[in-house]
Each structure stands twice: as structure tokens, then as C-alpha cells.
């Protein structure tokens, strides 16, 4: 009897392999993650590098009113240039990131020892301008406290008096952990690829079968109905696994081909053993992805309807992975109890080369497999009912 299951799988494989347009679209989704991540590393890596290396050019209006300040800024490797006639318009237009305006009263106030006002024109919402803005502000604050200290010293007051506290920052973020924000998005792309590998096949084999009018004659063949549900689910597994392999190879290739070390200042250890481990961790998700989609597609009336649900279904379990990039979650037991979430944390741990509890791997795999079995059982029940014909 079991060989009849393989007959169904075999037929669906042949049928779907001939539908090359669908599975090529599926393959695109597998490459989507590596391409996006590669692009982000390139762009953001370059920004990091530019930020550290490029000298800051600061447009200044009224530079002649504060020769002292200008000399100080130039000492800080800041290149001073005359500001455009309308600095605000230039900032709004994005021609310059920041402009310093030295008002007419400045030299008077400065000489009188009063608090002198300087104006910075900036757009705080523009992310790309923030390094320039921060550097300008830092330089101005340094100048302010430098002059302040001088003035106090002249009056015979110790500068310590106005420095009530000094903040010493102990930043535990290594350059590597900054780069790992990118890496934390990997689980999201991996799970997304698994779901998208399976969905064209499942859509065609379930909702498509009904739409073509081939489901009714198929179900008259002497097999328990549930075998059809199982056969269709299993036939999507090789496609999902292929997508998983392609995605993982894509990530490996990107970390190998791109000068990640130059761009991010860290080396990422996505070696063969880590890839194999991640692949094994994801295998239960493959079955769950196929089972869930078989179930959903079993009660959609048309392939079009299935096509509106399935990408959404793949998004839900992969979203926590996206959140993990910004909200680190500890690998506690409860996280392992949630199928796909546990795996995403485990993948992250692998990428961070953290010690991993074998029991966590077992628990998350077991629960995911159990859920896949439960979902398959529901799909089988659906196939045994009369409504399977009409959807």
C-alpha cells in the first residue's frame, strides 16, 4: 500500500517539475534573502567605512566672526567652506547635511564672556546626515567646554567644580555584535524561502487539482482518501528542501564572495558545519510548512484564492525572526516550545557561535514535528469529507 503513496509523490514531482515557471519563481524566493542581505551589507558597510574615514566638510556662514572657533574646528580635521546663501533651503533640498550659522552678535557675546549662541541647520530625520551632525555637535561641545575650562582657570576656579560627573561608557558591543544585527535576519529569510519553495507545488496539487476538475476522478481510485493528502504534502517536501539548500548556499556564497571583513570589520563564521547544523534544525520546519500549506490549500476554492493566502502564511512564522534582529530573546525553554520560533533562536545561536543546549534542539524539533503531524491529520480529515470536492 505504501508504494501507492510514492506513486502520488512521483506523479506530482513530474507534473510540477514540468511547470518550470512556477518552480523558477520559487527559486527566486530562495535567492531573495541572500541578495537582500548581501545588498544591505554592501550599502551599510560602505556607510560605516565612509563615516570613519571621510573628513567632514562643514558649510559655515559668518566664519569671519569667529576666527578662533574656525581654527579649532580645522584642527579637528573639519574642512570649512562658505555656506550657501540660504542654508535652510540647501538642507531641505539635501544638498548639504548640516550648516553652521555664526550670528552677528556672536563675537560681542563671546568677548563679553556671555553665553554665545550658534545655529546649526539640520534635518534630524535624515538618517544619512546623522554622522555629520553628530560630529559637528561633538566638535562644538568640545570647543565650548575647552573655552569654559580656560575661563574658569583664569578666574582661579578649578574646572572640576563644574564637572560634577564624568561618564565612562563601557560598550560591550563588539564590532562583531553590531554586524550580527544583519545576521539575525537570516532565520527570517530561511523560513520564508522554505514556505515559498513548497507553496507553488501545493497550490497546484490541491487547489489546482480541484480547479482543473481532476480531483473528483482522482479520489475514485481505490486508496484511502488520506493518502492523497499525504502524497500531495510529501511531494512539496523536495521543493522546500531545495529552496532551503539554495538559500543556505546563497548566504554562504555571499559571506565568502563579499569582502565582509573589510565592509563590517568582522569575520562571519558561516562554515560548512554551521550550515549543516542549520539545515538539520530547519528540516522539521520543512514538514510543518508543507503540512500547513496543504491544509490551507485544501479548503481554498481556486489557485487564485490559495495564492492570496499562502505567501501570508509563510510570513507569520518568519516574522519573529525579523524581530529577533532588534529584540534579542534568550534561548529559554518557552521559546523552544513555539514551533519555528525556537529554531530561529537556535540559528541565531549558531551564527553567534554561542553554546547550544542539545535538549533545546530536540525539544523544538520534536514539537515542530508533532505540530506538522497534527496539521497533516486535519488535512487528512478534510480529504475524507465530502466538501473536499467543492472546496
Amino acid at each position, binding site marked *: 500500500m505504501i508504494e*501507492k503513496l510514492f*506513486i*502520488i509523490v512521483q*506523479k506530482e514531482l*513530474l*507534473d510540477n517539475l*514540468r*511547470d518550470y515557471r512556477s518552480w523558477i519563481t520559487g527559486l527566486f524566493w530562495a535567492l531573495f534573502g541572500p541578495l537582500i542581505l548581501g545588498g544591505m551589507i554592501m550599502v551599510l558597510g560602505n556607510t560605516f567605512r565612509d563615516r570613519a574615514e571621510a573628513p567632514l566638510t562643514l558649510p559655515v556662514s559668518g566664519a569671519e566672526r569667529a576666527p578662533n572657533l574656525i581654527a579649532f574646528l580645522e584642527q579637528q580635521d573639519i574642512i570649512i567652506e562658505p555656506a550657501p546663501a540660504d542654508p535652510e533651503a540647501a538642507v531641505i533640498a539635501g544638498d548639504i547635511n548640516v550648516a553652521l550659522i555664526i550670528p552677528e552678535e556672536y563675537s560681542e557675546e563671546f568677548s563679553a564672556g556671555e553665553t554665545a549662541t550658534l545655529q546649526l541647520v539640520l534635518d534630524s530625520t535624515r538618517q544619512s546626515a546623522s554622522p555629520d551632525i553628530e560630529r559637528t555637535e561633538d566638535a562644538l561641545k568640545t570647543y565650548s567646554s575647552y573655552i569654559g575650562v580656560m575661563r574658569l582657570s583664569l578666574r582661579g576656579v578649578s574646572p572640576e567644580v563644574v564637572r560634577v560627573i564624568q561618564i565612562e561608557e563601557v560598550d560591550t558591543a563588539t564590532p562583531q555584535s553590531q554586524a550580527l544585527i544583519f545576521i539575525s535576519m537570516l532565520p527570517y529569510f530561511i523560513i520564508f524561502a522554505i514556505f515559498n519553495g513548497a507553496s507553488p507545488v501545493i497550490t497546484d496539487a490541491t487547489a489546482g*487539482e480541484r480547479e*482543473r*476538475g*481532476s*480531483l*473528483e*476522478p482522482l*479520489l*475514485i*481510485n*481505490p*486508496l*484511502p482518501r488520506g493518502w492523497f493528502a499525504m502524497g500531495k504534502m510529501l511531494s512539496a517536501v523536495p521543493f522546500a528542501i531545495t529552496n532551503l539548500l539554495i538559500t543556505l548556499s546563497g548566504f554562504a556564497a555571499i559571506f565568502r564572495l563579499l569582502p565582509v571583513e573589510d565592509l563590517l570589520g568582522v569575520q562571519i563564521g558561516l562554515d560548512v558545519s554551521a550550515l549543516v547544523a542549520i539545515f538539520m534544525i530547519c528540516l522539521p520546519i520543512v514538514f510543518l510548512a508543507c503540512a500547513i500549506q496543504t491544509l490551507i490549500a485544501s479548503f481554498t476554492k481556486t489557485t487564485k484564492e490559495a495564492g492570496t493566502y499562502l505567501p501570508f502564511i509563510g510570513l507569520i512564522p518568519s516574522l519573529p525572526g525579523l524581530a529577533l534582529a532588534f529584540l534579542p530573546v534568550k534561548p529559554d525553554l518557552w521559546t523552544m516550545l513555539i514551533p519555528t520560533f525556537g529554531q530561529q533562536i537556535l540559528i541565531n545561536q549558531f551564527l553567534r557561535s554561542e553554546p547550544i543546549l542539545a535538549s533545546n534542539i530536540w525539544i523544538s524539533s520534536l514539537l515542530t514535528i508533532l505540530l506538522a503531524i497534527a496539521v497533516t491529520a486535519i488535512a487528512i480529515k478534510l480529504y475524507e469529507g*465530502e466538501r473536499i*470536492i467543492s472546496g
Partner: protein
Amino acid sequence: MIQVQGLSKSFGKVKAVQDVSFFAPDGQITGLLGPNGAGKSTTLRMLYTLLKPDSGSAHVDGFDVRQSPLEVQRRIGVLADARGLYSRLTSRENIRYYGRLHGIESEVLEKQIDRLASLLDMQAIMDRKTEGFSTGEKLKVAIARALVHEPKNVLLDEPTNGLDVMSTRAMRQFIVRLREEGKCVLFTSHIMQEVAALCDQIVIISGGEVSAMGSPNDLREQTGQESLEDAFVAVIGSEEGLE
């Protein structure tokens, strides 16, 4: 051999089939005649195990459709109302899939496929993908795959629907041939002429119920009408939905 006893089926409030009983013996053609929506397809669907009857029973070669559906499925060949093919597979692959699901050994299966191909005069389209086939060509593939396991009972739902004159003729000859092979043939139709020309026994269904049953002669006698067509109309009460 198909035996139907008091079969009923409702969908919500709609009583699709009510208390339908008939007997279709081997070596005979039994026709279910009735207007569109009379309950013919629903009756057939219960016979080929797709729908479960609300009440009553149906037996194929002595096997109950509800208790032993797999035994029934092995003994029937069905041309269902839905007769979709796999358009990316060739005719041969379509037929082979069903043959393998019936557990036929591959050597025997290939011979059987070739036999059906010549019987249905479809050798030319055997190794072409079924995408773009004409209605007649698709029907041939659908029939070949339904008969690939040489079933003793053949159920055909509106087999000549959508066919041109030549294909209809060929289809009718094929049905007669099945009778000559000693099979129990049960088919539905809303075409009076077709039923009159082919059937040994006619079951007239309207409004989900059997309104008359018997050989063409029996029906003429029962209604006192000269022609079979007049007899049908007399039984059903109107010509609506018939051709």
C-alpha cells in the same frame, strides 16, 4: 452489477435524491434519464463513493458503497462529471497514473494502455501533452484512464456532453461494445434519443425521485404512448430540461 435501494441525499434543505431504487445487471445498459438538476449526477456520485448517502444503500457486485468503498472503487470505472486531465502530462502518463494507483503491474499496464489506445482510436495523441486537446480527445483520455483496470461496472456521467456528431456516434458505439463485453453499464443523460437508442433499461428521474422504470417497451406500455419520447414526456410531465 449495481443494486440501489432507497437512496437519499440532501444538501442543506435541498433534497437532491429521494428514495431512489433500481437494479443494473451485468451485460446490460441502464440509462438514468432526467432533466438537468434531477439528481442523476448526485445518484452516480453516491455510487462511486464520492458522496455518502443520508439513507438507503447501494451495492456494487455485492459490496456496500459505505462499508467497503475501496472494494467498490476497484470494481468500477467512472467517467465523472468533472473529467479534468493533467495538462502537463501526456495521455499515456495520465492513463498510467491511474493504472498504477490501481496497482497494475507495469508490463500488464503498458499492454492494457496500448489496447485501450487502439480501441479508442487515439494512438496519435498518446505521447502528446494533453494541454490544448479538443473535447473529444480529452474525453478519450478520460475514458481510457477510467477503464485501465478493466472494471466490471462502468459509470458514465453525461458521456456525450459537448461532443460533435461524429464523436457522439463513436461514443455510443463504444458503450454498446462495453455491453458486448458483458459489463454493467450505467450512464446518465438528458438526451431522450440517446437513451432510447442505447438502453436495455431506463430509469427516469425527476425532482430527485424515480418516476418510471423499465425497458423501452415497458415504458411505452405503461404510458400508453406510441413513441418513447412521448412516453418520457408523459412520465416527467414536461419537456423542460430534456433534448
